[in-house]
């Protein structure tokens, strides 16, 4: 049996257990599936959080290693949990001196830190209609055993947020400045890998600028690749 076969479609070529050649394109390249998307298609990726109309969860009055607000936890055995993405949205500003942290906790001793209690958050399989359920624990209002400094490393934190971030700062008391990371006069549009486009047969990317009086000026950067179109 050949090792590779040219294929020009992504239709099924065999059921599990079938011995078939791997796909290559018409120009001999090997299509590579990102492992996290392959896992997703197997129903092994999950999204945890809250629905739009859910009641947001209170944080704590003071930092205490035994009472995380939200927790993603692998079971003691059975699965490896690989976090892919975290987003944290402040929805109520609370009182003075808000702090926030995301930290990795790992005992490194084959002796899991004990989970005592918590309330489950909403968890959906990232594959629509997939009935496989999560093995990780995704919970809020948590109580766990004590965690030492040697057992955790901070991934992200925010400690200097103003007390009135949402009610005042976020709605109009500060001063915007042009920065390298937060430009008000430039935009980056990373087409690769998010926006796959193949301009052929008259296709275009067009940038327009129009100003009623004197002209606006822009310094553009376009980057592209060229491939013989007989590969299609």
């Amino acid at each position: 049996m050949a090792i590779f076969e040219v294929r020009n479609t992504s239709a099924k070529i065999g059921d599990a257990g079938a011995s078939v050649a791997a796909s290559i394109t018409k120009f001999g390249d090997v299509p590579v599936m990102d492992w996290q998307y392959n896992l997703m298609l197997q129903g092994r990726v999950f999204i945890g959080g809250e629905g739009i109309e859910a009641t947001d969860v209170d944080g704590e009055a003071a930092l205490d290693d035994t009472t995380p607000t939200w927790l993603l936890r692998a079971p003691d055995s059975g699965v490896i949990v690989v976090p892919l993405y975290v987003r944290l949205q402040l929805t109520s500003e609370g009182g003075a001196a808000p702090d926030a942290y995301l930290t990795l906790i790992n005992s490194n001793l084959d002796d899991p830190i004990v989970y005592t209690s918590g309330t489950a958050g909403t968890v959906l399989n990232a594959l629509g209609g997939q009935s496989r359920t999560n093995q990780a624990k995704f919970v809020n209002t948590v109580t766990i055993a004590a965690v030492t400094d040697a057992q955790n490393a901070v991934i992200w934190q925010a400690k200097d947020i103003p007390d009135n971030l949402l009610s005042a700062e976020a709605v109009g008391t500060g001063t915007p400045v042009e920065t390298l990371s937060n430009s008000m006069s430039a935009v980056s549009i990373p087409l690769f890998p998010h926006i796959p486009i193949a301009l052929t047969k008259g296709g275009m990317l067009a940038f327009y600028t129009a100003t009623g009086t004197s002209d606006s000026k822009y310094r553009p950067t376009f980057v592209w690749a060229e491939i013989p179109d007989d590969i299609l």
Partner: protein
Amino acid sequence: MAEFIVRNTSGKVADAGVAKEASITKFGDLITIPWQYNLLMQGKVFMGGMGIEATDIDGQDDTYAEEEVTHCLKAPDSGTVVIPLYVRVQLTTEGGAAPDFYLTYVNTNLNTPIAISAGTANTVINCLGGQHTANAALCYYTVTSGTYTSAQNVVLWQAKDVPDNLLSVEAIGTGTPVETMDNSMSAVTIPLFPHIPIGLAKGAALYLYASTATSDSKLRPTFVWAELPDTIL
């Protein structure tokens, strides 16, 4: 036949169905192509949104209601897995007081798809020039959806503290930084790939909402997605 062969060109080596060697470089590295670009070359990547001169779409003009979806990307009940790659949301009209915005993932997990009873198709273009394969996903605006619960959706992105006058005042020169949708003040980019692998199937959806208590806010979305036959599952 060898398993690999050195190639120094990307010209066609064979038509579909032919057993051939995979390409390697002159220094022996395997040459790969990202899966989404392979799908693109097969005409299976689409972009949905609105044209430059299109009339932007009103959001909700009252309090948020889950049934009143401003824009959606929804898988058909069967036949296709829809993989969202990218979403961009552009606020084009600020509307009235206290605007709220949400992008949420809706999935019943029960093989009982949430139904859409009304909606209008957005512009959808195949990302491969000249390719006329039509999309199977439902990229709609002004959608009426069936109800769903908090256990059937997870918010992927939201903006709830945007000032009422974002476009007319804050964004055009009062010297005030504000809560914005990302850092552009009026737009946010949500690159789902590669961080958030989602496969919309069996009616699962991304729902985008704009909700403003008085006059409407308007959004101009850009959805990019790939489609695969669901026989691969």
